[in-house]
C-alpha cells in the first residue's frame, strides 16, 4: 500500500475531479454543484457552504482514493486503464446510489415526497442527477474517469 502516494495523489485527483465539475457547471452543462451540495449539509449560506463543501469534498475524495490505492495494492499494479475502470465503477455508485439517497439524510435537500412544510432549499437530484440537467450524468462520468485516470497514472508511476 502506497500511503504517501495515496495522501498526495488522492488530493490531486480530487482537485482534478472538482475542476472538471466546476468547469462543466460554468460552461452551462450541469447545475450539479458538488461543493454546494455537500456544504449545505453544514450551513444554509451558499457562499459558506461552497467553502465547507469544497473541503468536505476533498475529504470524501481522499476516502475514495484510499479504496483505489487499496485496489491497486491488491492487484499489485496501478495503470491508467485500471484507474479508469475503477472510476467507472465509482461514478455508477455515486450517480446510481449516493446522489439519489442523499435526500434521505441531507437536511436541506428536498425529496420527491416533499410537502408544504418542507424547508429544504435544494431540489432533489433524482436518479443519475438528471434533475440537474440532462448532461449531468455525462459530466459526472467524465469527472470520475479523470479522477481514476489521475490516480492510476500517478500511483503507477511510483
Amino acid at each position, binding site marked *: 500500500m502506497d500511503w504517501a502516494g495515496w495522501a498526495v495523489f488522492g488530493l490531486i485527483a480530487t482537485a482534478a475531479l472538482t475542476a472538471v465539475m466546476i468547469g462543466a457547471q460554468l460552461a452551462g452543462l450541469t*447545475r450539479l454543484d458538488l461543493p454546494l451540495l455537500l456544504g449545505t449539509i453544514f450551513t444554509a449560506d451558499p*457562499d459558506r457552504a461552497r467553502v465547507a463543501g469544497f473541503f468536505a469534498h476533498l475529504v470524501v475524495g481522499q476516502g475514495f482514493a484510499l479504496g483505489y490505492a487499496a485496489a491497486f495494492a491488491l492487484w499489485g499494479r496501478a495503470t491508467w486503464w485500471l484507474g479508469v475502470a475503477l472510476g467507472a465503477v465509482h461514478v455508477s455508485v455515486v450517480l446510481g446510489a449516493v446522489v439519489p439517497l442523499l435526500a434521505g439524510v441531507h437536511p436541506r435537500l428536498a425529496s*420527491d415526497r*416533499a*410537502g*408544504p412544510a418542507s*424547508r429544504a432549499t435544494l431540489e432533489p437530484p433524482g436518479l443519475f442527477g438528471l434533475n440537474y*440537467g440532462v448532461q449531468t450524468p455525462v459530466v459526472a462520468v467524465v469527472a470520475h474517469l479523470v479522477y481514476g485516470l489521475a490516480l492510476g497514472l500517478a500511483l503507477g508511476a511510483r
Partner: protein
Amino acid sequence: MTATASGPGPAPAADGGGAPIADHALIGDTRTAALVASDGTLDWMCLPHFDGEPVFGSLVGGPAAGKFRAGPLRRSPVASRRYRPSTTTLETTWTTDQGRLTLTEGMVAELGRYLLPETLVVRRLAAADGPVDVEVDLAPRLGESNRPPVVRHRREGVVLAWGSLALALRSDPVLPPGSGDAATSWRVRVEPGRPLTLVLSTADRQPLVHVDPERAWEALRDDEERWRRWCGHIDTAGIEPRYRAPLERSLLTLRLLTYSPSGAPVAAPTTSLPEDPGGVRNWDYRFAWPRDASIGIGAFLGVGHVDEARHFLAWLLHASRLARPRLPVLLTLHGRYPRPERELRGWPGYRSSRPVRTGNGAADQHQLDGYGWVVDAAWLLTRAGVRLDGETWRAVRGFVDEVARRWREPDAGIWEVRDDAAHHVHSKLMAWLALDRGLRIARRRGVPERRRRGWVAEREAIAAEVRTRGFDAGLGAYVRSYGSTELDAAVLVLPLLGLEPPGSPRTRATIDAIRSRLGAGGPFLYRYPPGSDGLPGGEGAFLPCSFWLVQALAASGRRPEAAELFDELLAWAGPLGLYPEEADPSSGEFLGNHPQALTHAAMVQATLALRDSNRLGGSPPS
C-alpha cells in the same frame, strides 16, 4: 351558484359534454393535483407529478381518457359545495331523493416520515337522513393512447398497473365485487353513521403502499390542521375583513400549485382548456414561468409568508442556472428545457377544442419583460430584509447586464404571440424596472462604479425612448409597441414602477384609455385588441389584467374605483373562489387553463394594493 349573463358568477358551458370549467374544484398535494366536477367526477390528474401523463384525463380527452367518480347513483342537485375553511379539503353535499350525501375529499400533502405513497387521494362518502345509493367508478387510462391498466383484485383492494406505474384502491367498508369490464365499478348503499372511505394510492417506480382507509383519513385530517396553521400565518393586518377569505383561497391555490420538491410554481395544473371553446387556442400550462415565480414572490412576501417567497427565488436562480445570463421563458418543474410542443392524437379536447397539446412552443422566445419581474422580486426580498447571498446577487447582476445589453432588440412580449417580435412597450418598461431595481439592490450590496454608471445610463436611455416612441400623443396613452396605436393591458404596470409618477396625466390617461378601449364589459378587460394575434377565432377577457387594473387604480390614488372593480371581480369568482385564465365577458363562462396561478397571484397583489392605498389614505405614493 351559477349565473346568467346578466349577473356575476361564472356561467355553465353553453353546450353538452363534460362539466364546465367553472364547475371544477382543485385538490392537490403540491406534487400533483386533480380537478373534480360537482357530480363527484375526478376527471383530471397526472402522475407522478403535475407534468406527468394523465391517468384521469376525460376533462380534455373525452370519456375514453379516464375518470374516477364517487357520488350519488342518480344525478342529484348539489346542496352545498365548499372547501373546509382554511384548508384544501373539498366538501360536496347532494340532496338526493333518499337523503343527503356528502363527499369529503382531498390529497395528503405532508407525508412526513410515514410510509405513505407520494400521492394519496382520500374520498369519504357519508349519508344523512337515510341510506343513499352511490356509484363508485374507477376507470383510469394512461397517457395519450388511453391505455387501460392490468387490473388485479386482491385481498387488500384493487390494483391497477401499467408496468412501473400503479394505482391501488382500498375502501372501508370493503367494496363487494364490482361490475364493468374490469369490475371496477360499484353501486353500493351508504348507511347514515357508516361512511364509505375510498383511498387511492399511487406508485411510480416504487412498491405500492396499501394504506388503511382509517389511517388515510387521519392523514387527511392532520393535513387540514397543517393548512389551518399555514393560513394562521397570513398577515391580514389592514385588509378588509370581507377580502380575507378570498385572499386566503388564492394563497392556498398558489401554494397547491407550487411543486414542493423543487419549489417551482406551476402556471396551471391543466393543458388545453380552451381560451376559445371549439378553437385552437389550447396550450399546456403545466410548466413554470419565471415571471409567475416573481409575481408569486411579491404575493407571498406581502402577506408575511417569507419562506415561500425565498423558495421561489431559490428555484428561479437554480432553474435558470444553465441558461444564464439568459432567462428562460419557461421551464419544467425540475428546471429542464421543455420537450417540443406536440398534439395528442385522437384527443377530442374540451368541448371539441382541438388540438390538445403537450409541451409549450413559447419556450424558445426572447421575452425581455421576464428580467424585470425577476430583478424586482429580488429587490422586494432585499427591501424586506432578506440578504441576497453572493451567488444570488451574481445571478441578478448577470440578468441586469443582459438587459443593459439587449433592451434595444425586439422581443416576443409577455403575451407570447408567436412570430411577433416587436418593440413592446411593456417589455421596455420591464427592462427599465430591471435596471432600476438592480441599482436599488446595488446601493445595499455594492457594484463596481463603472458598472453602476452603465446601468444608470441604460435606464435613462430606456426611459427617454419609451417616453417618446412608446407614447402616442393622439391617444394620450402609452401603446402596445413602438409605432402602434393599439393598447396593451400589460402596460397597466406603469404606475407601479416609478418611470412615470403614479398620478401623472400620462399615467391616468393610459389607465383610462386601456379601460375604455380594452374594456370587455363589466370588470373584464381584453389583454390586447381581440383578433390582433394572428390566430383564428377570438378569446375571452384576460382575468389577471382586471386585477392589474385594480392595482393601477389603487396605486394612482383612485381607491374607490379600484375597490368597486375588485368587488365586481370577487363576485365573478368560481363558486369555490377559484379563477381560470380567462372568462367570456358576455356570459362569464370560464375559459383557459384552470385554476390559473397568475390570476390568483394578481388577485393577491390587487388585495395588497388596496390595503396599501388604504394606509396611504387613497393618495398616490410620492
